[in-house]
């Protein structure tokens, strides 16, 4: 799936999934299904037809957000291929119904609100506020210069420092972000990709200074470079170089930071970039198989690293399709890991995932409506069995969220958890004719995509030719046109439109962060031992040049000596150069 293509597994598997859906299952009695079919046909001809007779032509042309045609009613006849073994029990292969035996009865999902803005001091205060409100895991957003690996004083960083996340230019900034937060006690998710190795090294560096051993650190970096080329587009080097760094991180963390989740395989950005639920599911899982192959290439056993791979999905509108997507994802992951990669260990087969509600579904018109959208999306994630959840704030189509908006978003999760009754029963929609059918339908379409990606030469080639990016761009254009043509409705945008603007208070960010960060960076450079920094960077360059070495060790050494983010990333730019994506028009 990663390099090369024409692996016979994918074609065979896609065909067997399609064929499997028309065979007779064991869950329903064949005679009973026949009766259902006859009854349904009669109902459609008489009761349904009479009731709907004067509806305009095409009123039944209804589709999901992914464009899957849906009927008005689902019955056992739509899932007559079912064997209960393919649904199974929670905590047991194929994990369709959930990855833990007791799901939310034992422990609720982790409420993890993504935050970060301005200076490290601002973010330190926001993190402490969230911990004080009962949040259970930290999650940090970085600004654009950090995401691309430039220091705050770089000319490309001008005007961007601290704008959509916190700025980190050196270890000193990380020390401030986590001041007073014991790293041995919390779990921290850092949304960072191209510089993920550097930020992991810095986190380990802060822990060392706090006296916490690396082996105790819990947290996640995103480090999913494949989806960067597919969707988010924040890279520093060509794909091969970034994949090599991801490999180094896998090997390093497996040995030194066994509780660190070093790749969060992300569908979120693929969806936000305009893909369908089917594409989000297929491309994300394909990326997951790509990382499995990367780990195997590095000489690791799947059981050594698969438990540290986690997933990150979007939850957006079209409630049932989202729920079906989460369920399908679990079943595909377990099935392929077992069938194709020969995995037996349970912890390697079950898919853990984080979910974030969709930023792209929020509207700047009538922003308070976004609270409702987020609640529906959050509910879908919970019904889909997520392990952690971030809910967006209603003002995020305007700017970074205010504290009040963040609190409402967190309270939305707490209301679902404490009041709705939804967490009481495991996978409560399991067995719904519609949800089971839709789950199988999404699965089938995902397997067909795996076959196409493989036929396109594997993932690496598919991103370098722009195949996957164009698939997404076409879908996003299709969606926009549907809204424009009034085929899809968005409240406040093309229906129930109000002419006046509703001013809301938004968070203001000024140049204060840029000034403060630049000043601190200058001080760091003044105070550090320059000769040692140069020596550490020279060692790092050697490691980058030698494909067989692991660059994490010299990188950790360099950041501990206060080599800056931009300097460390700059070494890679020197060795590997930059990357220009193919034309996507």
């Amino acid at each position, binding site marked *: 799936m990663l390099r090369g293509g024409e692996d016979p597994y994918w074609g065979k598997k896609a065909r067997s999934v399609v064929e499997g859906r028309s065979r007779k299952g064991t869950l329903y009695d064949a005679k009973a299904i026949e009766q259902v079919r006859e009854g349904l046909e009669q109902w459609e001809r008489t009761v349904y037809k009479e009731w709907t007779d004067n509806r305009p032509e095409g009123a039944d042309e209804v589709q999901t957000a992914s464009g899957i045609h849906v009927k008005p009613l689902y019955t056992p006849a739509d899932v007559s291929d079912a064997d209960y073994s393919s649904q199974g029990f929670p905590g047991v292969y194929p994990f369709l119904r959930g990855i833990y035996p007791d799901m939310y009865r034992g422990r609720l999902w982790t409420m993890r609100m993504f935050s970060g803005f301005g200076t490290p001091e601002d973010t330190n205060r926001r993190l402490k506020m969230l911990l004080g409100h009962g949040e259970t895991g930290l999650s940090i957003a970085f600004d*654009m*210069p950090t*995401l*691309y690996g*430039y220091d705050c004083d770089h000319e*490309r*960083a*001008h*005007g*961007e420092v601290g*704008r*959509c996340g916190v700025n980190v230019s050196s270890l000193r900034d990380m020390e401030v972000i986590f001041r007073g937060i014991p790293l041995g006690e919390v779990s921290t998710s850092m949304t960072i990709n191209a510089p993920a190795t550097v930020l992991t090294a810095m986190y380990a560096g802060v822990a060392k200074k706090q006296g916490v051993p690396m082996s105790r650190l819990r947290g996640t970096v995103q480090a999913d470079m494949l989806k*960067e080329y597919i969707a*988010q*587009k*924040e890279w520093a080097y060509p794909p091969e170089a970034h994949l090599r760094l991801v490999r180094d991180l896998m090997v390093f963390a497996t040995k030194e930071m066994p509780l660190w989740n070093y790749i969060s395989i992300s569908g979120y950005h693929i969806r*936000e*970039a*305009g893909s369908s639920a089917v594409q989000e599911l297929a491309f994300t899982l394909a990326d997951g198989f790509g990382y499995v192959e990367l780990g195997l290439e590095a000489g690791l056993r799947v059981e050594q690293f698969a438990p540290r791979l986690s997933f990150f999905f979007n939850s957006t509108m079209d409630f049932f399709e989202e729920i079906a997507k989460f369920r399908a994802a679990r079943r595909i992951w377990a099935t392929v890991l077992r069938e194709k990669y020969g995995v037996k260990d349970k912890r390697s087969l079950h898919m853990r995932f984080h979910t974030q509600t969709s930023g*792209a579904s*929020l*509207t*700047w*018109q009538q922003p308070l409506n976004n609270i409702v959208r987020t609640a529906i999306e959050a509910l879908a994630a919970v019904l889909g069995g997520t392990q952690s959840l971030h809910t967006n704030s209603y003002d995020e*189509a*305007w*700017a*970074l969220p205010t504290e009040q908006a963040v609190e409402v978003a967190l309270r939305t999760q707490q209301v679902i958890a404490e009041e709705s009754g939804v967490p009481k029963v495991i996978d409560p929609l399991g067995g719904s004719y519609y949800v089971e059918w839709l789950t199988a339908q999404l699965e089938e379409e995902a397997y067909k995509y795996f076959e196409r990606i493989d036929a396109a030469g594997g993932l690496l080639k598919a991103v370098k030719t722009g195949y996957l990016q164009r698939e997404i*761009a076409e879908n*996003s*254009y299709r969606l*926009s*046109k549907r*809204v*424009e043509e009034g085929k899809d409705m*968005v409240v406040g*945008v*093309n229906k129930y439109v109000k002419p006046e*603007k509703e*001013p809301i208070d*938004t968070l203001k*960010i000024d140049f204060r962060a840029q000034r403060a960060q630049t000043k601190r960076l200058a001080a760091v450079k003044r105070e550090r031992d320059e000769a040692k920094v140069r020596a550490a960077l020279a060692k790092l360059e050697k490691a980058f040049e030698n494909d067989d070495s692991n660059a994490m060790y010299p990188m950790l050494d360099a950041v501990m000596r206060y080599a800056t983010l931009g300097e460390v990333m700059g070494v890679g730019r020197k060795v590997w150069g930059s990357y*220009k*994506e193919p*034309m*996507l*028009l």
Partner: protein
Amino acid sequence: MPRKTAALQRKIRILVAKPGLDGHDRGALVLARAFRDAGMEVIYSGLLPSPEQVAQMAVDEDVDVVALSLLNGAHMTTFPKVKKLLEKKGGEKIVVVGGGIIPEEDKPKLRRLGITGLYGPGSSFEEIVEHVRSRVSKERRKD
């Protein structure tokens, strides 16, 4: 056809650009397709060009319009920079429109600089295309 009329009716050439450190290209790619379907000649900047590169590309490609898209909050520095560089490079007649996540209070200042449109997510193609057409035709009438 008189020369003036021909000039007024010439196909609109538009550069869709994402200057600065921002990979959120969904809006830019969708709009590029919408402009194309509306009969314009579309050039896409690709990702991460500097304001300097955007302005140079606009002048080199002899476009009528530069459509800037930014969702990272840096529009108040980046948009004016592109506009200024265009003027410096002899592209003062090139129409500049913008869009993305742009707070209401920033809009008057950008408009004063001649950067208009300033559409947010969920705006209609029809409205955006119409805006571009009307600004171009105004600009062409000046000649």
